[in-house]
Every structure is written in C-alpha cells, then in structure tokens.
C-alpha cells in the first residue's frame, strides 16, 4: 500500500518536470501552428481588430471571409480584442514581441508605436493610386515623421445631434454648416429655452456615461475652438501655457457650468436622446443609426458650438498598420488594399455610420454624398474644421491627463487647478522621455 503511495508521489513529480520541459520548448506566439501548405505557398496573415459595435464586427468578419475565398494564396486569420483593454493588450504584446502581422490602432495611439519602431512604412506597399484616393485627413492621421504608417478605412464624425422639431418649437436658428455654427451666447439661450420646457431641466447629452478616449476626442475640440489646445503643436514639448491658458480655462468652465446647472443628462442608460429626454446630443457618427431609428427625419446634425475662434470638431479613428515582425508584408498589404475597395469601404461605413476613407467611396455614399444626411461630417473633414488629436508619442499621457482633468472638472474641482495638474503631468512625461526623440534605425 505504502509503496503504491510513494510511487504515486514520484509519478506526480514527473508531470511537473515535464511541464517545465514543455514550457522551455514553447516558441512565442506559435502555440497553434498554422498549416501552411508548402506546395501552394499559402501566406497566413494574422490580424487583430478591436471588438467594436456588433454591426462593425459582422462586416469585418464577412470581409475576411470574402477575402479568403477570393485570394487563394493569402489567408487572413482574424482575432477580436475587447475594445476597452485594446491598447493595454497591444502594448503588452508589443513589449513581448508578439504583435500580429496587421492590426488596428486607435487614432493617435499610433505614434507611440511608430516611436517604438514597431511598424513599417506603407508607401512601398500601397500603390500611388490607392493613396491618392484617400481622404487627406486619413493620410494626415497615418503620417508621422514623413512616412505613412497607417491607413484608415473610415474617419470619424463628431457633432451635435438635434431634434429639429424641438428647435423649431423654441424658434432657434438652425445652422447650415460649420461657418454659421451657434456661438456660446446663442447656445446658452437655446439651452435655457429648452430647459424651460423640460421636466428635469436636463436638455443636453454629453455622453458622460462613456469611459476613456471619448472625453479627449469629444471635448478637446472645445479647447481648439476657444483658441487653446492640448499641447503646443510647434514643438510638441510642452502643454503649459496652452492646456491651462485663459482660453482653455474659460472654455472648460463653460462646460462645468452646464453640468453644474443640471442641464446635462447623466445618460446612464445611454438612451437620453433616443428616449426623448434631451433634444441635443453631443456625439459621433456611431450614434446615427440608433438616433435615426428612434426619430427618423426629425434628427439633424449640427456643428459643435463656436467657443470663440470658430466651430471645431474631432477627427481620427481606427487605422491599420503592418508590423515589423510580419514575415509577409505584401500579403498583409493585400488585405488592406481589399478593405480599401470602394464596395468594401461602403460596406463598413454603411454599417457603422462613419465617414468613408476614400474619395470614391464618399461620392458613392448615400449618407455622405452630395445630398447625404451626414454630409456635414464629410465637409468638416474636407474643409479643415476638424482638428486631429496631437500627433506625438506622448499622446497616451496627454489623453489620460486630459481625461482625468475632465473627470475632476465634472466633479466640481476648480478648472484652473485641474488643467494645471494635467499640463504639469504632460510636461513631466515629455521631459522624462527626453522629448521623445525619433531614434532612427
């Protein structure tokens, strides 16, 4: 009996050591070996995408299927990564040298990865004709240090959704474009009048229920509209004097006032506009489908109010980049070219309501074409009303600092204090990184 137990103990040790041996045998990232038929020379392209809205995911999935059917010797293997942890995951993988061949980057997070030297320039991999068809904002977003590192299939639109009927009831002027957007005085009047007719006085939805990047994307245009900014864009070395300037202070104080006066709906169920509790919703292209579903033709899109120096809005969205680690870059580029075909661009943007990333697609889009309901978004991008978020590897710190400042402002902290703190933090980080010098290899 006891011999048996002793043997059992020894036996149990064996698997332990085997585990260790097995572990030493592992190769990073190759846990499931891909069956590459050497005779057919099939290239497998590993792709990561963010798990966004259901419609977006479905379209991307079907695009992958179509591509795989069509192209015999390149097969795409797609992995979805939850959106909330997306950047953290990519960062961990980048450090571990475990990135896929092709993956998405959320707007300005791209530049930090370029700085880390993880991406390859795309000029050689995409023909000139394809690049010429891209919207200038897309090219702008993907270019850093004179090279194109990423390409977006779509760009974003940010504006003020409104119910026309509610505005007509209070006899408000309805702007026709960014040029004649409401100024602050007008906007405050409109808010006041709407509040008089509203039960809970909350008439504006700022998507306060969102977390993360939304706050920088949605509200840094306010800074720019007031003449301030997130960082000094001449040198990209300091935020002090720009983020905590007088103009920034007064702009954010205006936002704080709206929140403290009870004019803003907390929007916990994300349905303030859809349920009719508010007449105005400060939001992006992704809401168009829901809003239209709820209110049909009563939904109109207006430019954001002018905080002094003209209405400004945001731009930038997910874009695709190819990693240095990729063993077959032209195969990966082949998938990008597929996604940029007009049909494919429209398939995606019809599903998620975003602005198509190529001129040909914009023309053919029923939403963004000349008479489209969402034409404002496209115009804002084409006419330079939209401002890209700062193109610097310091972006992650800039955005977390601004997000924090926004939360503090929302909770009643003195605006100047919050902005000062954010600016100091950004400056410190840039200094710590020696100004993010571009280290060429």
């Amino acid at each position, binding site marked *: 009996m006891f011999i048996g137990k002793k043997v059992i103990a020894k036996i149990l*040790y064996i698997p*332990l050591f085997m585990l260790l041996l097995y572990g030493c045998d592992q190769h990073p990232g190759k846990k499931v070996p891909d069956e590459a038929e050497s005779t057919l020379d099939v290239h497998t392209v590993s792709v990561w995408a963010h798990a966004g809205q259901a419609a977006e995911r479905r379209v991307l999935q079907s695009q992958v299927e179509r591509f795989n059917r069509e192209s015999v010797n390149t097969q795409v293997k797609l992995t979805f990564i939850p959106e909330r942890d997306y950047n*953290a995951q990519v*960062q961990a993988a*980048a*450090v571990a040298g475990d990135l896929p061949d092709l993956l998405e980057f959320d707007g300005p997070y791209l530049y*930090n990865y370029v*700085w*880390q*030297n993880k991406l390859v320039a795309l000029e050689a991999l995409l023909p000139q004709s394809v690049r010429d068809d891209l919207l200038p904002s897309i090219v702008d977003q993907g270019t850093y240090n004179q090279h194109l590192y990423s390409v977006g299939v779509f760009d974003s639109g940010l504006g003020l959704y409104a119910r026309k009927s509610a505005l007509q009831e209070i006899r408000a002027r309805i702007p026709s474009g960014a040029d004649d957007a409401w100024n602050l005085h007008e906007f405050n009047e409109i808010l006041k009048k709407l509040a008089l007719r509203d039960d809970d006085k909350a008439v504006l939805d700022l998507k306060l229920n969102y*977390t993360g990047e939304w706050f920088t994307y949605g509200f840094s245009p306010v800074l720019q509209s007031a003449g301030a900014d997130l960082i000094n864009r001449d040198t990209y070395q300091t935020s002090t004097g720009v983020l905590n300037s007088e103009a920034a202070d007064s702009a954010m104080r205006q936002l704080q006032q709206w929140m403290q006066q009870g004019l803003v709906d*907390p929007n*916990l169920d994300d349905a303030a506009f859809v349920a009719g509790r508010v007449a105005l919703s400060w939001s992006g292209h992704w809401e168009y489908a829901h809003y239209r579903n709820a209110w049909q033709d009563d939904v109109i899109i207006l430019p954001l109010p002018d905080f002094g120096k003209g209405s400004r809005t945001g731009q930038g969205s997910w874009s695709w980049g190819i990693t240095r680690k990729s063993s077959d870059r032209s195969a990966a580029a082949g998938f990008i070219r597929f996604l940029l075909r007009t049909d494919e661009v429209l398939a995606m943007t019809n599903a998620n309501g975003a602005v198509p990333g190529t001129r040909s697609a914009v023309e053919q889009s029923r939403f963004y074409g000349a008479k489209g309901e969402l034409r404002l978004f496209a115009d804002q991008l084409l006419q330079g009303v939209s401002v890209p978020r700062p193109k610097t590897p310091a972006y*992650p*710190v800039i955005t*977390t600092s601004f997000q924090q400042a926004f*939360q*503090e402002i929302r*909770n009643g*902290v003195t605006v100047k204090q919050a902005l000062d703190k954010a600016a100091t933090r950004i400056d410190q*980080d840039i200094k*710590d*990184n*020696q100004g993010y*010098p571009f*280290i060429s290899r």
Partner: protein
Amino acid sequence: MPRDLKRQDCLNAWFFMLPALLGLLFFVLLPFVLAVGLSFTNLRMGSPLPTEFVGITQYQRILTDTAFLHGLLNNTIFALIVVPVQTILALLLALLINQPLRGMVVFRTLFFMPVVFPLSLVAVVWVLLYAPGPQGTLNSLLEFITAGAWQPRDFLHDGAWALPAISLTSIWQGVGFQMVILLAALQSIPEELYDAAKVDGANKRQQLVFITLPQLRNALIFVVLVTTILAFRLFDQVQIMTQGGPRNSTTTVIYEAVRAAFASQQVARGAAMTVVFFTIVLLLTLLQRFLIKHEKAIE
C-alpha cells in the same frame, strides 16, 4: 546512528522543499527583487530610450503625489471601516447561527454564498445596484425604508459615498468567510467552561465577555490580520466601479501602481509604489506576530 538519521532527514527536507522553493524563488522573490531594483530607474514599457538609474527620484515623486497619498489614506480608511464592521457583523452572525436552533445550516450556506463570487463579478453586479436616480436598486430600497425621505444619490460618483459604497461591496463578499471561521472557533470552545461559569452565577453577557471572546482571540486576530492585508490590496472593485473615484476618493495604492505601470507605461514608478506597499504591510504583519502566541516548531 542519530547522525545518519539527521543527514537523511536533512536530505529529505531539501527534496521536500525544493519545488516550492524553486517556484517561490523564481516567480515571487526574483520578480520582487527586480521590482525593487526597477524602482530606482526610469524604466518605461516599450520605450526605445535606454533605461537609466535615477536613485530615489521615483520615491520622491510618489510621496509628493496627491493621488498616491490619497490612495494610502483611502486604504487606511477602507481598512478602518471594513475590518471592524465586517468582523463584528461576522461575529454577530456566528453567535446567532451557533444557537441550537433548527435550520441554521441553511443560513450558514446562504451567508457564505457571496464568498464564492469572483471579485470582478461582484463589482459588476453592484455597479447596477448603485445606479443613481430613483430606479437604482439601493436608492429605491432606501426610499422605501425611509418612506420617501431618502434623496436618490449617485453613490459611485459622489465624493462622500464612493468609498463607503465600495466598502459595503467588500463586506458583503467577505463576511461569510469570516463568519465561518468564527463559527468553527465558537464550536470548539469546550462546554465545561460555560457550565462552570453558570455554576458561578454568570449571566449571558458575562459569559460572552469573559469566556467566548477570550477563547476566540486567536481566530479573531487571524481574521483581522487577513482582512487588513486584503484591505490594502484593494483593486478589482476600484477598477470596475469607480476608476479611482471622484477626485481620488477611491483610489488605492495598488490601483495607482497598476495604473502607473499599465496605463502610463511607467513601470519604474509602479514598482516604487509596490515597494512602499510591501513595507507597510510587512510592518502590519510583524505587529500581528507580536500579538499572537508564538507557535514553536520542533527545535
């Protein structure tokens, strides 16, 4: 003969210890030593810049950082709320369940159920319970109990209520664990002690104070220490429910450390924070070992 036996004992002991020692060395001690070392540098994850030695800069920065200091304060307040409340509640429940009544096992089971939930799931459910406005569960419950006198609050976004809200969540999840331990300790108190006391004329309250509590001393100390250490490790609920809370009112040491290391990629800064954390908890543990009787291993 005895010397051979001792040598045999020694060899065997090393074999017994070996896998555990290797594991602890490689996966706990080594990373911790690395973390300490890193705290004196400026390492950032993913940076192409070379890492430099910066002495105590990280420590200087975190000890003057309002968020970190607030985190330390919050951990302390949290421990001061949760440890007594949870322990007293657990003791109370244990005393009640210890009564010789039918069906007490059912209660014991029900109170223990929350312990089985992963903290992250607990946090998610309680986010909904704390929903602001009159539809929120807790708000409507309080409104019902106070017959309408209660004003609905946004617990998780209110500077005064956020930390207590998180405390309640932890208490809910942890009280069953403590209760079971105290219950077992209660049940192992010899009856004779109580009989003797009754003969001496002691009433229920005197029995409680002079017999029950002293007998529970070890179990109580154990429970208090474990809960205190866990209180300083508070992270999951903060990350899911408040992300540091309105104006840092719910941030904690570990939350700041994780945020520094992963959100801002400032690995060295995060490392410094965890070293400070370790020092504090080590001191607390040493304190406990003074209070408890020392068990003696064979000499």
